[in-house]
Protein backbone atom coordinates (compact mmCIF):
# COMPACT_ATOMS: atom_id res chain seq x y z
CA UNK A 1 0.00 0.00 0.00
CA UNK A 2 1.35 3.40 -0.98
CA UNK A 3 0.23 6.44 0.97
CA UNK A 4 0.79 10.04 -0.04
CA UNK A 5 0.78 12.40 2.94
CA UNK A 6 0.38 15.96 1.70
CA UNK A 7 1.75 18.11 4.50
CA UNK A 8 0.96 21.64 3.24
CA UNK A 9 4.65 22.25 3.92
CA UNK A 10 5.97 25.08 1.75
CA UNK A 11 9.49 26.45 2.16
CA UNK A 12 9.84 26.78 5.93
CA UNK A 13 6.16 26.88 6.79
CA UNK A 14 5.43 23.70 8.66
CA UNK A 15 2.18 23.76 10.62
CA UNK A 16 0.86 21.52 13.37
CA UNK A 17 -1.60 19.86 10.99
CA UNK A 18 1.36 18.46 8.99
CA UNK A 19 2.30 16.35 12.03
CA UNK A 20 -1.31 15.21 12.33
CA UNK A 21 -1.30 14.02 8.70
CA UNK A 22 2.04 12.28 9.35
CA UNK A 23 0.67 10.62 12.49
CA UNK A 24 -2.37 9.24 10.69
CA UNK A 25 -0.25 7.93 7.81
CA UNK A 26 1.98 6.16 10.33
CA UNK A 27 -0.99 4.72 12.14
CA UNK A 28 -2.17 3.12 8.89
CA UNK A 29 1.38 2.04 8.12
CA UNK A 30 1.70 0.19 11.40
CA UNK A 31 -1.39 -1.86 10.53
CA UNK A 32 -0.77 -2.50 6.85
CA UNK A 33 2.93 -2.17 6.22
CA UNK A 34 2.48 0.76 3.88
CA UNK A 35 5.04 3.03 2.23
CA UNK A 36 4.60 6.67 3.14
CA UNK A 37 5.57 9.42 0.74
CA UNK A 38 5.34 12.73 2.59
CA UNK A 39 5.10 15.72 0.26
CA UNK A 40 6.55 19.19 0.67
CA UNK A 41 7.05 22.01 -1.81
CA UNK A 42 10.34 23.86 -2.27
CA UNK A 43 11.10 22.96 1.34
CA UNK A 44 13.75 24.27 3.64
CA UNK A 45 15.68 21.07 4.37
CA UNK A 46 16.71 22.26 7.83
CA UNK A 47 13.06 22.73 8.78
CA UNK A 48 12.20 19.35 7.24
CA UNK A 49 14.20 17.63 9.98
CA UNK A 50 11.34 18.32 12.38
CA UNK A 51 9.41 15.63 10.51
CA UNK A 52 11.74 13.00 11.94
CA UNK A 53 10.01 13.43 15.29
CA UNK A 54 6.77 12.24 13.71
CA UNK A 55 7.94 9.07 12.01
CA UNK A 56 8.54 10.46 8.52
CA UNK A 57 11.44 8.70 6.76
CA UNK A 58 10.86 9.85 3.19
CA UNK A 59 10.01 13.35 2.04
CA UNK A 60 9.35 14.13 -1.60
CA UNK A 61 10.36 17.72 -2.17
CA UNK A 62 8.47 18.96 -5.23
CA UNK A 63 10.53 21.70 -6.79
CA UNK A 64 9.69 24.43 -9.25
CA UNK A 65 10.07 28.21 -9.27
CA UNK A 66 6.47 28.31 -10.46
CA UNK A 67 5.39 26.92 -7.08
CA UNK A 68 6.95 29.65 -4.99
CA UNK A 69 3.57 31.34 -4.66
CA UNK A 70 0.58 29.14 -3.82
CA UNK A 71 -1.45 28.17 -6.87
CA UNK A 72 -3.88 25.28 -6.53
CA UNK A 73 -3.72 24.30 -10.22
CA UNK A 74 0.07 24.36 -10.38
CA UNK A 75 0.45 22.38 -7.16
CA UNK A 76 -2.24 19.86 -8.10
CA UNK A 77 -0.63 19.28 -11.52
CA UNK A 78 2.84 18.85 -9.99
CA UNK A 79 1.60 16.56 -7.26
CA UNK A 80 -0.28 14.49 -9.83
CA UNK A 81 2.92 14.11 -11.88
CA UNK A 82 4.65 12.63 -8.87
CA UNK A 83 1.68 10.62 -7.62
CA UNK A 84 1.21 8.82 -10.93
CA UNK A 85 4.77 7.56 -10.71
CA UNK A 86 4.09 5.61 -7.50
CA UNK A 87 0.49 4.38 -7.99
CA UNK A 88 -0.88 5.58 -4.66
CA UNK A 89 -3.71 3.79 -2.86
CA UNK A 90 -4.51 6.56 -0.41
CA UNK A 91 -3.80 10.29 -0.42
CA UNK A 92 -4.22 12.25 2.80
CA UNK A 93 -4.56 16.03 2.90
CA UNK A 94 -5.20 18.43 5.77
CA UNK A 95 -8.73 19.89 5.62
CA UNK A 96 -7.38 23.45 5.71
CA UNK A 97 -7.74 26.23 3.15
CA UNK A 98 -5.09 24.70 0.87
CA UNK A 99 -5.85 21.02 1.37
CA UNK A 100 -9.55 21.53 0.78
CA UNK A 101 -8.77 23.00 -2.65
CA UNK A 102 -6.13 20.47 -3.62
CA UNK A 103 -7.61 17.18 -2.45
CA UNK A 104 -10.68 17.23 -4.72
CA UNK A 105 -8.50 18.35 -7.64
CA UNK A 106 -6.31 15.27 -7.23
CA UNK A 107 -9.38 13.11 -6.74
CA UNK A 108 -10.76 14.40 -10.06
CA UNK A 109 -7.47 13.67 -11.84
CA UNK A 110 -7.49 10.08 -10.59
CA UNK A 111 -11.27 9.68 -10.98
CA UNK A 112 -11.07 8.77 -7.33
CA UNK A 113 -13.64 9.04 -4.57
CA UNK A 114 -12.91 11.73 -2.01
CA UNK A 115 -14.14 12.19 1.56
CA UNK A 116 -13.48 15.57 3.15
CA UNK A 117 -13.08 16.61 6.77
CA UNK A 118 -12.53 13.07 8.05
CA UNK A 119 -12.58 12.74 11.85
CA UNK A 120 -12.02 9.01 12.23
CA UNK A 121 -10.71 6.11 10.21
CA UNK A 122 -11.64 2.50 10.75
CA UNK A 123 -9.50 -0.25 9.33
CA UNK A 124 -11.51 -3.46 9.15
CA UNK A 125 -9.06 -6.06 7.85
CA UNK A 126 -7.73 -3.74 5.20
CA UNK A 127 -11.13 -2.26 4.33
CA UNK A 128 -10.99 1.42 5.17
CA UNK A 129 -14.02 3.31 6.42
CA UNK A 130 -14.01 7.06 6.93
CA UNK A 131 -16.16 9.01 9.35
CA UNK A 132 -17.13 12.53 8.56
CA UNK A 133 -19.45 15.07 10.21
CA UNK A 134 -22.36 16.26 8.08
CA UNK A 135 -25.10 18.84 8.69
CA UNK A 136 -22.54 20.92 10.57
CA UNK A 137 -21.74 18.11 12.96
CA UNK A 138 -25.35 17.36 13.86
CA UNK A 139 -24.73 13.88 12.48
CA UNK A 140 -21.82 11.73 11.41
CA UNK A 141 -21.64 9.43 8.41
CA UNK A 142 -19.45 6.41 7.91
CA UNK A 143 -18.40 6.13 4.28
CA UNK A 144 -16.53 3.82 2.03
CA UNK A 145 -14.68 4.92 -1.10
CA UNK A 146 -15.37 2.58 -3.98
CA UNK A 147 -12.55 3.57 -6.33
CA UNK A 148 -9.16 1.91 -5.97
CA UNK A 149 -7.43 5.25 -5.39
CA UNK A 150 -8.84 6.94 -2.31
CA UNK A 151 -8.51 10.58 -1.31
CA UNK A 152 -9.32 12.09 2.08
CA UNK A 153 -8.77 15.33 3.94
CA UNK A 154 -8.59 15.28 7.72
CA UNK A 155 -10.04 17.84 10.09
CA UNK A 156 -7.27 19.74 11.91
CA UNK A 157 -6.97 19.21 15.70
CA UNK A 158 -8.77 15.85 15.66
CA UNK A 159 -6.00 13.31 15.00
CA UNK A 160 -3.57 14.13 17.78
CA UNK A 161 0.03 14.31 16.54
CA UNK A 162 2.12 11.64 18.27
CA UNK A 163 5.88 11.73 18.55
CA UNK A 164 7.47 8.70 16.95
CA UNK A 165 11.13 9.57 16.26
CA UNK A 166 13.04 8.08 13.33
CA UNK A 167 16.77 8.18 12.79
CA UNK A 168 16.96 9.41 9.28
CA UNK A 169 14.96 11.42 6.82
CA UNK A 170 15.54 10.83 3.14
CA UNK A 171 14.66 13.94 1.15
CA UNK A 172 14.14 13.22 -2.55
CA UNK A 173 13.78 16.13 -4.93
CA UNK A 174 11.13 15.85 -7.61
CA UNK A 175 11.47 18.44 -10.35
CA UNK A 176 7.97 19.41 -11.39
CA UNK A 177 7.64 19.93 -15.06
CA UNK A 178 4.73 22.30 -15.29
CA UNK A 179 4.58 25.33 -17.53
CA UNK A 180 3.54 28.88 -16.75
CA UNK A 181 0.20 28.25 -18.54
CA UNK A 182 -0.71 25.80 -15.83
CA UNK A 183 -0.57 28.55 -13.22
CA UNK A 184 -4.03 29.87 -13.90
CA UNK A 185 -4.72 31.49 -10.56
CA UNK A 186 -1.98 32.44 -8.18
CA UNK A 187 -1.47 34.16 -4.88
CA UNK A 188 0.19 37.53 -5.35
CA UNK A 189 0.05 38.72 -1.76
CA UNK A 190 -0.90 37.57 1.73
CA UNK A 191 -2.43 39.78 4.41
CA UNK A 192 -1.81 38.14 7.76
CA UNK A 193 -3.91 39.07 10.76
CA UNK A 194 -0.84 40.12 12.69
CA UNK A 195 -0.42 38.58 16.11
CA UNK A 196 -3.78 36.86 15.97
CA UNK A 197 -4.25 33.15 16.27
CA UNK A 198 -6.90 31.69 13.97
CA UNK A 199 -9.88 29.87 15.52
CA UNK A 200 -9.27 26.92 13.18
CA UNK A 201 -5.77 26.38 14.51
CA UNK A 202 -6.20 27.21 18.17
CA UNK A 203 -6.14 24.76 21.09
CA UNK A 204 -8.26 27.12 23.17
CA UNK A 205 -10.91 29.54 21.91
CA UNK A 206 -12.55 32.30 23.95
CA UNK A 207 -15.74 33.41 22.22
CA UNK A 208 -18.04 36.30 22.98
CA UNK A 209 -21.69 36.80 22.08
CA UNK A 210 -24.35 39.44 22.38
CA UNK A 211 -24.12 39.19 26.15
CA UNK A 212 -20.89 41.24 25.85
CA UNK A 213 -23.22 44.17 25.08
CA UNK A 214 -20.83 46.25 22.91
CA UNK A 215 -17.76 45.94 20.69
CA UNK A 216 -15.53 47.77 23.20
CA UNK A 217 -16.20 45.16 25.90
CA UNK A 218 -14.42 42.51 23.86
CA UNK A 219 -11.21 43.64 25.55
CA UNK A 220 -12.36 41.30 28.36
CA UNK A 221 -12.45 38.42 25.86
CA UNK A 222 -9.08 39.41 24.42
CA UNK A 223 -7.42 39.65 27.83
CA UNK A 224 -8.57 36.18 28.83
CA UNK A 225 -7.50 34.84 25.42
CA UNK A 226 -4.10 36.43 25.78
CA UNK A 227 -3.48 34.85 29.20
CA UNK A 228 -4.45 31.45 27.79
CA UNK A 229 -2.66 31.83 24.46
CA UNK A 230 -6.09 31.36 22.90
CA UNK A 231 -7.82 32.58 19.76
CA UNK A 232 -10.87 34.82 20.00
CA UNK A 233 -14.17 33.74 18.46
CA UNK A 234 -17.65 35.18 18.15
CA UNK A 235 -21.31 34.33 17.61
CA UNK A 236 -23.02 35.40 14.42
CA UNK A 237 -25.05 38.01 16.31
CA UNK A 238 -21.95 40.07 17.13
CA UNK A 239 -20.42 39.54 13.69
CA UNK A 240 -23.61 40.76 12.02
CA UNK A 241 -23.57 43.79 14.31
CA UNK A 242 -20.06 44.56 13.12
CA UNK A 243 -18.48 44.16 16.56
CA UNK A 244 -16.20 41.36 15.36
CA UNK A 245 -14.78 40.29 11.97
CA UNK A 246 -16.38 37.51 9.88
CA UNK A 247 -13.25 35.43 10.27
CA UNK A 248 -14.09 34.93 13.97
CA UNK A 249 -17.61 33.60 13.52
CA UNK A 250 -18.11 30.12 14.89
CA UNK A 251 -21.11 28.08 13.77
CA UNK A 252 -23.00 26.56 10.92
CA UNK A 253 -22.35 29.53 8.62
CA UNK A 254 -19.01 30.33 10.20
CA UNK A 255 -16.08 28.19 11.26
CA UNK A 256 -16.43 24.67 12.55
CA UNK A 257 -13.92 24.27 15.35
CA UNK A 258 -12.73 21.45 17.60
CA UNK A 259 -10.44 23.02 20.20
CA UNK A 260 -9.42 21.34 23.44
CA UNK A 261 -11.27 24.03 25.35
CA UNK A 262 -14.04 26.31 24.12
CA UNK A 263 -15.09 29.15 26.41
CA UNK A 264 -18.45 30.73 25.51
CA UNK A 265 -19.11 34.11 27.13
CA UNK A 266 -22.56 35.66 26.82
CA UNK A 267 -23.54 33.22 24.07
CA UNK A 268 -27.00 31.64 24.28
CA UNK A 269 -26.12 28.44 22.42
CA UNK A 270 -28.41 28.61 19.38
CA UNK A 271 -28.44 25.40 17.34
CA UNK A 272 -26.42 27.06 14.56
CA UNK A 273 -23.73 28.11 17.03
CA UNK A 274 -23.58 24.68 18.67
CA UNK A 275 -23.17 23.11 15.23
CA UNK A 276 -19.80 24.84 14.91
CA UNK A 277 -18.29 23.98 18.28
CA UNK A 278 -20.02 20.89 19.67
CA UNK A 279 -17.03 18.66 18.92
CA UNK A 280 -14.81 20.71 21.26
CA UNK A 281 -13.17 18.49 23.85
CA UNK A 282 -14.28 20.64 26.79
CA UNK A 283 -16.87 23.39 26.78
CA UNK A 284 -17.00 26.07 29.45
CA UNK A 285 -19.90 28.54 29.41
CA UNK A 286 -20.47 31.81 31.23
CA UNK A 287 -24.00 33.15 30.99
CA UNK A 288 -26.32 35.02 33.33
CA UNK A 289 -29.30 32.88 32.32
CA UNK A 290 -29.14 29.49 34.04
CA UNK A 291 -31.54 28.08 31.42
CA UNK A 292 -29.44 29.15 28.43
CA UNK A 293 -29.11 26.17 26.03
CA UNK A 294 -25.32 26.50 26.07
CA UNK A 295 -25.27 24.99 29.59
CA UNK A 296 -26.80 21.76 28.24
CA UNK A 297 -23.64 21.09 26.25
CA UNK A 298 -21.21 22.53 28.80
CA UNK A 299 -18.71 20.61 30.90
CA UNK A 300 -18.21 23.58 33.18
CA UNK A 301 -20.33 26.62 33.71
CA UNK A 302 -20.62 29.80 35.71
CA UNK A 303 -24.05 31.37 35.99
CA UNK A 304 -23.55 35.10 36.30
CA UNK A 305 -22.65 38.39 34.68
CA UNK A 306 -19.71 38.27 32.25
CA UNK A 307 -18.60 41.74 33.33
CA UNK A 308 -18.27 40.56 36.88
CA UNK A 309 -16.83 37.11 36.16
CA UNK A 310 -14.38 37.65 33.31
CA UNK A 311 -11.88 39.98 35.08
CA UNK A 312 -11.78 37.67 38.11
CA UNK A 313 -11.45 34.58 35.96
CA UNK A 314 -8.55 36.09 34.05
CA UNK A 315 -6.82 36.93 37.35
CA UNK A 316 -7.30 33.39 38.69
CA UNK A 317 -5.89 31.86 35.54
CA UNK A 318 -2.93 34.22 35.64
CA UNK A 319 -2.12 32.84 39.09
CA UNK A 320 -1.99 29.29 37.74
CA UNK A 321 0.05 30.30 34.73
CA UNK A 322 2.48 31.86 37.23
Amino acid at each position, binding site marked *: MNIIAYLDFNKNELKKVAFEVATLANQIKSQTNANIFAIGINVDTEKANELKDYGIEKLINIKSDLLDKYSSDAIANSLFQFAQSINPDLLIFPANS*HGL*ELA*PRIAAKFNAGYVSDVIDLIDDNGNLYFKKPVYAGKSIIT*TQIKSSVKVISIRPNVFTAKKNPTNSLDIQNFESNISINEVKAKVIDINKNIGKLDVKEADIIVSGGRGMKAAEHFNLIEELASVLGAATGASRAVVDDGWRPHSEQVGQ*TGKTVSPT*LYIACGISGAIQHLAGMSTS*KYIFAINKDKDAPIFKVADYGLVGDVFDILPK*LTEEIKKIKG
Partner: protein
Amino acid sequence: MNILVAISRVPDTTTKIIVGSDGKTIDNNNVKFILNPYDEFALEEALRLKEKNGGNVTAISVGNDLNTETLRNALAMGADNAVLIRAEGEFDSYFVAKNIADYAAKSNPDIIFLGKQSIDFDSLQLPSYLAEFLNLPLVTIVTKIDINGNEVTAEREIEGGKEIVSTTLPCIFSAQKGLNNPRYPKLPDIMKAKKKPIEEIQAISIDNLIEIIKMEIPSRSRLNKIFGNTDEDIQNVVKLLHEEAKVI
Protein backbone atom coordinates in the same frame (compact mmCIF):
# COMPACT_ATOMS: atom_id res chain seq x y z
CA MET B 1 -21.21 38.71 -19.05
CA ASN B 2 -22.84 35.29 -18.69
CA ILE B 3 -22.80 33.82 -15.25
CA LEU B 4 -23.77 30.36 -14.09
CA VAL B 5 -24.63 29.92 -10.40
CA ALA B 6 -24.86 26.44 -8.92
CA ILE B 7 -27.58 26.20 -6.32
CA SER B 8 -28.23 23.53 -3.74
CA ARG B 9 -31.19 22.73 -1.57
CA VAL B 10 -30.36 22.07 2.08
CA PRO B 11 -32.17 21.61 5.39
CA ASP B 12 -32.83 24.86 7.24
CA THR B 13 -30.12 25.57 9.80
CA THR B 14 -32.55 25.10 12.71
CA THR B 15 -33.32 21.52 11.63
CA LYS B 16 -32.94 18.86 14.24
CA ILE B 17 -31.40 15.99 12.32
CA ILE B 18 -33.12 12.62 12.74
CA VAL B 19 -31.71 9.54 11.02
CA GLY B 20 -34.14 7.95 8.55
CA SER B 21 -35.28 4.33 8.61
CA ASP B 22 -32.54 3.29 6.16
CA GLY B 23 -29.96 4.31 8.78
CA LYS B 24 -27.98 6.17 6.13
CA THR B 25 -29.83 9.37 5.33
CA ILE B 26 -31.86 11.92 7.24
CA ASP B 27 -35.56 11.66 7.87
CA ASN B 28 -36.98 14.43 5.68
CA ASN B 29 -40.36 14.56 7.40
CA ASN B 30 -40.98 17.99 8.91
CA VAL B 31 -37.69 19.31 7.58
CA LYS B 32 -37.87 22.71 5.96
CA PHE B 33 -35.50 23.10 3.03
CA ILE B 34 -33.84 26.35 2.01
CA LEU B 35 -31.50 27.71 -0.61
CA ASN B 36 -28.00 26.97 0.72
CA PRO B 37 -26.94 30.17 2.59
CA TYR B 38 -23.51 30.31 0.89
CA ASP B 39 -25.20 30.09 -2.51
CA GLU B 40 -27.03 33.31 -1.65
CA PHE B 41 -23.68 35.12 -1.46
CA ALA B 42 -22.71 33.57 -4.80
CA LEU B 43 -25.99 34.54 -6.45
CA GLU B 44 -25.90 38.05 -5.02
CA GLU B 45 -22.41 38.63 -6.40
CA ALA B 46 -23.49 37.30 -9.79
CA LEU B 47 -26.49 39.63 -9.83
CA ARG B 48 -24.34 42.64 -8.93
CA LEU B 49 -21.87 41.84 -11.69
CA LYS B 50 -24.71 41.52 -14.17
CA GLU B 51 -26.23 44.80 -13.04
CA LYS B 52 -22.88 46.48 -13.59
CA ASN B 53 -21.76 44.80 -16.81
CA GLY B 54 -24.91 43.48 -18.46
CA GLY B 55 -25.37 39.85 -19.43
CA ASN B 56 -27.42 37.20 -17.75
CA VAL B 57 -27.46 34.96 -14.71
CA THR B 58 -28.49 31.31 -14.89
CA ALA B 59 -29.16 29.30 -11.74
CA ILE B 60 -28.60 25.57 -12.03
CA SER B 61 -29.39 22.74 -9.64
CA VAL B 62 -29.11 18.96 -9.76
CA GLY B 63 -32.05 17.12 -8.22
CA ASN B 64 -35.76 16.51 -8.59
CA ASP B 65 -39.04 18.42 -8.44
CA LEU B 66 -38.21 19.67 -4.97
CA ASN B 67 -35.22 21.55 -6.37
CA THR B 68 -37.50 23.60 -8.61
CA GLU B 69 -38.72 25.33 -5.45
CA THR B 70 -35.13 26.27 -4.66
CA LEU B 71 -34.53 27.43 -8.22
CA ARG B 72 -37.60 29.64 -7.89
CA ASN B 73 -36.00 31.32 -4.89
CA ALA B 74 -33.03 32.10 -7.14
CA LEU B 75 -35.34 33.46 -9.84
CA ALA B 76 -37.09 35.60 -7.23
CA MET B 77 -33.74 37.06 -6.18
CA GLY B 78 -33.14 38.05 -9.80
CA ALA B 79 -31.67 35.16 -11.80
CA ASP B 80 -32.76 35.34 -15.45
CA ASN B 81 -32.96 31.62 -16.15
CA ALA B 82 -33.12 28.41 -14.20
CA VAL B 83 -31.99 24.93 -15.17
CA LEU B 84 -32.87 21.71 -13.40
CA ILE B 85 -30.69 18.72 -14.11
CA ARG B 86 -33.07 15.96 -13.22
CA ALA B 87 -31.69 13.13 -11.12
CA GLU B 88 -33.38 10.83 -8.64
CA GLY B 89 -32.01 8.88 -5.72
CA GLU B 90 -28.79 9.43 -3.85
CA PHE B 91 -25.85 10.96 -5.66
CA ASP B 92 -22.47 12.27 -4.56
CA SER B 93 -20.66 15.53 -5.33
CA TYR B 94 -18.73 13.90 -8.15
CA PHE B 95 -22.02 13.17 -9.91
CA VAL B 96 -23.25 16.72 -9.38
CA ALA B 97 -19.96 18.21 -10.60
CA LYS B 98 -19.87 16.04 -13.75
CA ASN B 99 -23.39 17.10 -14.62
CA ILE B 100 -22.85 20.80 -14.01
CA ALA B 101 -19.56 20.66 -15.91
CA ASP B 102 -21.35 18.99 -18.81
CA TYR B 103 -23.84 21.86 -18.96
CA ALA B 104 -21.16 24.54 -18.53
CA ALA B 105 -19.03 23.05 -21.30
CA LYS B 106 -21.93 23.77 -23.69
CA SER B 107 -22.98 27.19 -22.37
CA ASN B 108 -19.46 28.57 -21.82
CA PRO B 109 -20.18 31.04 -19.01
CA ASP B 110 -17.68 33.80 -18.19
CA ILE B 111 -18.01 33.00 -14.52
CA ILE B 112 -19.27 30.05 -12.53
CA PHE B 113 -20.25 30.91 -8.99
CA LEU B 114 -20.87 28.47 -6.15
CA GLY B 115 -21.28 28.78 -2.42
CA LYS B 116 -18.13 27.93 -0.45
CA GLN B 117 -19.83 24.78 0.75
CA SER B 118 -23.26 23.33 0.88
CA ILE B 119 -24.36 23.12 4.52
CA ASP B 120 -25.62 19.55 4.28
CA PHE B 121 -22.48 17.55 3.53
CA ASP B 122 -20.04 20.43 4.08
CA SER B 123 -17.60 18.93 1.63
CA LEU B 124 -16.17 21.97 -0.18
CA GLN B 125 -15.38 19.84 -3.21
CA LEU B 126 -17.63 20.94 -6.05
CA PRO B 127 -15.61 24.06 -6.99
CA SER B 128 -12.37 22.07 -7.34
CA TYR B 129 -14.06 19.32 -9.35
CA LEU B 130 -15.50 21.88 -11.76
CA ALA B 131 -12.11 23.55 -12.15
CA GLU B 132 -10.60 20.20 -13.08
CA PHE B 133 -13.37 19.02 -15.39
CA LEU B 134 -13.56 22.35 -17.22
CA ASN B 135 -9.88 23.26 -16.99
CA LEU B 136 -10.72 26.71 -15.64
CA PRO B 137 -9.02 28.88 -13.02
CA LEU B 138 -10.48 28.68 -9.53
CA VAL B 139 -10.57 30.88 -6.46
CA THR B 140 -12.38 29.43 -3.44
CA ILE B 141 -13.69 30.99 -0.23
CA VAL B 142 -13.68 34.51 -1.70
CA THR B 143 -14.59 37.58 0.33
CA LYS B 144 -13.87 40.19 -2.36
CA ILE B 145 -13.76 40.20 -6.16
CA ASP B 146 -12.47 42.96 -8.47
CA ILE B 147 -12.90 42.47 -12.20
CA ASN B 148 -11.22 44.72 -14.71
CA GLY B 149 -11.70 43.62 -18.31
CA ASN B 150 -10.55 40.02 -18.15
CA GLU B 151 -8.26 40.58 -15.19
CA VAL B 152 -9.45 39.36 -11.80
CA THR B 153 -8.12 40.12 -8.34
CA ALA B 154 -9.85 38.27 -5.54
CA GLU B 155 -9.38 37.93 -1.81
CA ARG B 156 -9.76 34.52 -0.26
CA GLU B 157 -9.90 33.66 3.40
CA ILE B 158 -7.20 31.41 4.82
CA GLU B 159 -6.26 30.49 8.40
CA GLY B 160 -5.16 33.71 10.08
CA GLY B 161 -5.47 36.03 7.10
CA LYS B 162 -6.29 36.61 3.46
CA GLU B 163 -4.64 35.55 0.22
CA ILE B 164 -4.84 37.99 -2.68
CA VAL B 165 -5.22 35.95 -5.85
CA SER B 166 -4.72 37.06 -9.42
CA THR B 167 -6.41 35.31 -12.33
CA THR B 168 -8.36 35.87 -15.54
CA LEU B 169 -11.86 35.24 -16.87
CA PRO B 170 -13.43 32.82 -17.53
CA CYS B 171 -13.13 31.42 -14.02
CA ILE B 172 -14.82 29.78 -11.05
CA PHE B 173 -15.43 31.38 -7.65
CA SER B 174 -16.78 29.93 -4.42
CA ALA B 175 -18.35 32.53 -2.14
CA GLN B 176 -17.67 33.02 1.56
CA LYS B 177 -19.76 35.03 4.01
CA GLY B 178 -18.64 38.65 3.97
CA LEU B 179 -18.54 38.86 0.16
CA ASN B 180 -21.79 40.87 0.20
CA ASN B 181 -25.19 41.12 1.88
CA PRO B 182 -27.67 39.12 -0.16
CA ARG B 183 -30.90 40.90 -1.08
CA TYR B 184 -34.32 39.73 0.07
CA PRO B 185 -36.62 38.98 -2.85
CA LYS B 186 -39.61 41.33 -3.06
CA LEU B 187 -43.13 39.96 -3.17
CA PRO B 188 -43.82 40.90 -6.84
CA ASP B 189 -40.57 39.15 -7.80
CA ILE B 190 -41.57 36.06 -5.86
CA MET B 191 -44.89 36.03 -7.71
CA LYS B 192 -43.20 36.53 -11.08
CA ALA B 193 -40.69 33.77 -10.33
CA LYS B 194 -43.55 31.30 -9.94
CA LYS B 195 -44.46 31.74 -13.60
CA LYS B 196 -40.99 31.63 -15.12
CA PRO B 197 -40.11 28.50 -17.08
CA ILE B 198 -37.49 26.14 -15.72
CA GLU B 199 -35.42 24.34 -18.32
CA GLU B 200 -35.05 20.63 -17.65
CA ILE B 201 -32.22 18.35 -18.64
CA GLN B 202 -31.89 14.67 -17.87
CA ALA B 203 -28.78 13.94 -15.80
CA ILE B 204 -26.03 11.88 -17.33
CA SER B 205 -25.61 8.85 -15.16
CA ILE B 206 -22.34 8.25 -13.39
CA ASP B 207 -21.62 5.68 -10.73
CA ASN B 208 -21.20 7.07 -7.25
CA LEU B 209 -17.64 6.86 -5.95
CA ILE B 210 -18.68 7.17 -2.33
CA GLU B 211 -21.02 4.90 -0.45
CA ILE B 212 -22.59 5.88 2.84
CA ILE B 213 -22.60 2.90 5.18
CA LYS B 214 -24.40 4.53 8.07
CA MET B 215 -25.41 7.79 9.67
CA GLU B 216 -25.41 8.41 13.42
CA ILE B 217 -26.19 11.23 15.78
CA PRO B 218 -23.08 11.94 17.85
CA SER B 219 -23.69 11.46 21.51
CA ARG B 220 -21.35 13.33 23.76
CA SER B 221 -22.03 13.23 27.41
CA ARG B 222 -20.84 16.38 29.06
CA LEU B 223 -19.71 16.82 32.65
CA ASN B 224 -22.32 19.50 33.30
CA LYS B 225 -20.65 20.99 36.37
CA ILE B 226 -22.41 24.32 36.63
CA PHE B 227 -21.65 26.80 39.42
CA GLY B 228 -22.79 30.25 40.50
CA ASN B 229 -20.74 33.43 40.36
CA THR B 230 -18.98 33.75 43.69
CA ASP B 231 -15.21 34.08 43.93
CA GLU B 232 -15.14 30.54 45.23
CA ASP B 233 -17.12 29.27 42.23
CA ILE B 234 -14.65 30.92 39.88
CA GLN B 235 -11.69 29.42 41.74
CA ASN B 236 -13.41 26.05 41.61
CA VAL B 237 -13.84 26.07 37.86
CA VAL B 238 -10.26 27.19 37.30
CA LYS B 239 -9.11 24.34 39.53
CA LEU B 240 -11.20 21.83 37.57
CA LEU B 241 -9.92 23.12 34.24
CA HIS B 242 -6.40 22.77 35.56
CA GLU B 243 -6.58 19.51 37.51
CA GLU B 244 -9.51 17.55 36.13
CA ALA B 245 -9.66 18.51 32.44
CA LYS B 246 -5.95 19.47 32.40
CA VAL B 247 -6.57 21.95 29.64
CA ILE B 248 -4.98 25.02 31.23
